[in-house]
């Protein structure tokens, strides 16, 4: 009977979500205190019932209840406990349940942590989130119930997809969904503002920490996914421009733009329409990602079992929320026009330019992802748009962005003067480029790619520029405003990321070799020696494990093991690479196939600076965290900030 409890819990949650949205939207409209209180209570109740459903499903996995079809398809008697739990979100139905759970968690957090918000406004936000919940709970219960029975129950399950059996992948989807679904909060804030027709500086101040929190999760989620792909898929790449990756990257770009646009709206009351539009876009792109991954319209490495009828349902949701909110926008936007000037060289201009380039980047990714679908849908032929396209075109908007960030960080509101800052900035840029050239020629001995030195130079410039103000405050023993510090840390992270990408793209070395015990191969001065190999028995797989010793100029560097696992049920091999990590490079060994006569194929890789890609992501997220902890976000309705002069504005400013 336990699975039926899950079904029932989801149905109750659906009914409660309907109440949450009706109480929320109508209650706020009528300004009815009882209804508004009921909104908060139903928000909590929705969360509890979704959590119950989630626990029921997890319990089904833990006790091997194969009478639940979803468990039978995604688990196995020999699957270790941690992966049985991660298997809850290992396929379509369960991951949708996680989606809904995270949505209700965000709603719960908004209702608990926004006591300072005006009741009417908070209620509208919760009502909007309730409506999103209704849509996705209906989707889950009507088309994708994870509790469907399979009778008679099989004795054993079909096992979880082997490549999902990895610790990083246990953490990647929840984190990514926290970010993905978190964009719904900014969306709900936007809808609430449009419903009330009022949007003032405090609106931006309420919206910002939630947006930054979701953005942080999205940043970490994407970084985790990239790291996982790097070492689990065994081919050593960190980004493939796969539709599913693009689906998570587009909301990230839109959220990044939104964070910056919110800064202007908060400080100057400008660009309100644009900020609303970005809040809608960020959520729309999340929904679009959900659609692309689950409808089967695009072929992807990671896509779930395709099902056009589910696709139609998500498309319906997509159109309802996006076109609905955009229509509301079209009605409200004319009255939200704001007046106020700024000089051509000012923080406003820089942030606007940042938004333009980020939106152009997101648009390019959207176009590249969907173009094959456009061609196919109208019988214009099958084409592929892949990494060669994206790698090239993505640089068009983002390369100038790196330079702009470095300069724009030091601008001030209304009117910025670079009289005292121009010279140090120019110096930093020149030193950055010289340093970049030095790294290229001294450390790696060659020019690399056409943009290598620009990449290194831009990265160094960005890092130096980000550190400048915090260091100056440190020297002058001034306090560090959290928002400004957060901005510096996040931009420093972007600099790290740029350096990592430049390094690995320009100087990576990959070599596929055939090796038997005692054989050696040398790349980038490191000698890899195949020591031995043996069979290993895992809980639900058999593996061949190879020991590889690495030396440099005769001195030992590392001893790595790499496995090729053959899973018993799904009969699908996975490669577990051996990786030696150092501050300036990864050495990567992946075991391939047995070639006979004791020889094995191995892929040896030298990945300079690759860690800075993910470290950059961690710094970005850390910057977001620091910014959220800024004093003015605590306790809800805070006294608005009155910058007395441009200097204090710059000190508390962020962008």
């Amino acid at each position, binding site marked *: 009977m336990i699975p039926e409890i899950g079904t029932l819990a989801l149905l109750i949650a659906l009914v409660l979500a309907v109440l949450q949205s009706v109480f929320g939207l109508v209650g706020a409209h009528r300004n009815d205190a009882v209804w508004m209180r009921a909104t908060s209570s139903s928000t909590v109740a929705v969360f509890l019932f979704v959590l119950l459903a989630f626990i029921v499903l997890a319990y089904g996995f833990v006790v091997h209840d194969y009478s639940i079809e979803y468990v039978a398809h995604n688990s196995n008697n020999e699957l270790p406990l941690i992966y049985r739990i991660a298997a809850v979100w290992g396929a379509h139905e369960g991951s949708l349940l996680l989606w809904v759970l995270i949505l209700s968690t965000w709603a719960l957090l908004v209702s608990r942590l926004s006591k300072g918000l005006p009741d009417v406004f908070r209620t509208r936000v919760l009502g909007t989130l309730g409506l999103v919940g209704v849509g996705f709970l209906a989707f889950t219960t009507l088309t994708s119930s994870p509790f469907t029975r399979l009778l008679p129950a099989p004795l054993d399950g079909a096992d979880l997809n082997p490549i999902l059996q990895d610790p990083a992948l246990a953490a990647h989807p929840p984190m990514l969904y926290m970010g993905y679904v978190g964009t719904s909060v900014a969306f709900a804030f936007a809808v609430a503002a449009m419903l009330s027709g009022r949007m003032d*500086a405090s609106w931006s101040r309420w919206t910002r920490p939630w947006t930054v929190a979701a953005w942080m999760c999205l940043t970490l989620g994407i970084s985790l996914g990239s790291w996982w792909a790097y070492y689990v898929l065994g081919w050593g790449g960190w980004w493939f421009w796969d539709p599913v990756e693009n689906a998570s990257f587009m909301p990230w770009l839109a959220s990044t733009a939104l964070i910056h646009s919110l800064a202007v709206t908060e400080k100057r009351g400008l660009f309100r329409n644009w900020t609303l539009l970005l809040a809608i876009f960020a959520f729309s792109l999340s929904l679009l990602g959900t659609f692309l991954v689950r409808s089967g319209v695009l072929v992807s*490495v990671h896509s779930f079992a395709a099902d056009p009828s589910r696709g139609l349902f998500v498309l319906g949701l997509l159109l309802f929320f996006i076109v609905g909110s955009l229509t509301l926008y079209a009605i409200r936007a004319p009255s939200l026009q704001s007046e106020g000037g700024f000089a051509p060289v000012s923080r406003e201009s820089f942030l606007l330019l940042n938004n333009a380039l980020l939106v152009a980047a997101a648009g390019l990714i959207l176009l590249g992802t969907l*173009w094959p679908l456009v061609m196919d849908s109208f019988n214009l032929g099958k*084409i*592929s748009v892949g990494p060669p396209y994206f790698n090239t075109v993505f640089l068009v908007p983002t390369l100038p962005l790196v330079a702009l960030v470095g300069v724009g960080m030091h601008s001030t509101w209304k009117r910025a003067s670079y009289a005292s800052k121009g010279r140090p900035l120019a110096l930093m840029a020149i030193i950055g480029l010289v340093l970049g050239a030095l790294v290229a020629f001294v450390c790696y001995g060659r020019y690399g790619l056409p943009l290598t030195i620009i990449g290194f130079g831009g990265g160094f410039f960005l890092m130096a520029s980000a550190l400048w103000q915090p260091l100056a405050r440190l020297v002058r023993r001034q306090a560090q405003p959290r928002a400004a510090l957060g901005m510096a840390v996040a931009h420093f992270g972007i600099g790290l990321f740029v350096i990592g990408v430049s390094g690995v793209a320009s100087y990576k070395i990959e070599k596929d070799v055939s090796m038997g015990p005692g054989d050696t191969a040398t790349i980038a001065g490191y000698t890899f020696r195949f020591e031995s190999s043996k069979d290993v028995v895992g809980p639900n797989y058999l593996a061949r494990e190879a020991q590889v010793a690495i030396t440099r100029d005769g001195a030992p560097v590392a001893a790595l093991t790499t496995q090729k696992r053959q899973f018993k049920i799904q009969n699908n091999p996975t490669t577990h690479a051996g990786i030696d990590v150092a501050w300036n490079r990864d050495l990567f060994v992946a075991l391939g196939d047995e070639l006979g006569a004791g020889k094995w194929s191995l892929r040896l890789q030298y990945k300079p600076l690759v860690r800075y890609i993910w470290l950059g992501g961690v710094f970005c997220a850390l910057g977001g965290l620091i910014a959220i902890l800024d004093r003015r976000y605590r306790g809800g309705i805070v006294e608005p900030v009155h910058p007395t002069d441009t200097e204090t504005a710059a000190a508390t400013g962020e962008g």
Partner: protein
Amino acid sequence: MMKSPVSAVATALLIGWVGTAGAIDPSAAFADPALQARYEHLTNELRCLVCQNQTIADSNASLAGDLRREVREMIARGDTEAQIKDFLTARYGDFVLYDPPLSARTLFLWAAPGLFVLLTVGVVVRTVIRRARQPIDADDSEESA
């Protein structure tokens, strides 16, 4: 091999993931580094047709192995990149090229980077010009609104 209802869905799921273990191609590298570089460049731009969403350099599928061999032989024979791509598109269509060639169908795709940046930056320039004409310091009421 498996109980049938289970296997049907497992297969459906598997299709999306087949061959995800990376291919390792230990066939002897070209003695000439320029040829090896051309080989690596090409195989990393060709889409595997079996597993899709992987390059033939990365794919473990048997067909990807055959295509790598075909590319290797053509390079060794001195064929140009264009000749090799023609050979493959004659058999598999443009789908095999991850780098979509410029044609009427992809004109917008390749014009888009310039267009999008011009468009968005154009909007910025227009806005900045408009805002620069407005009074700059007379709007403190906005901030405390």
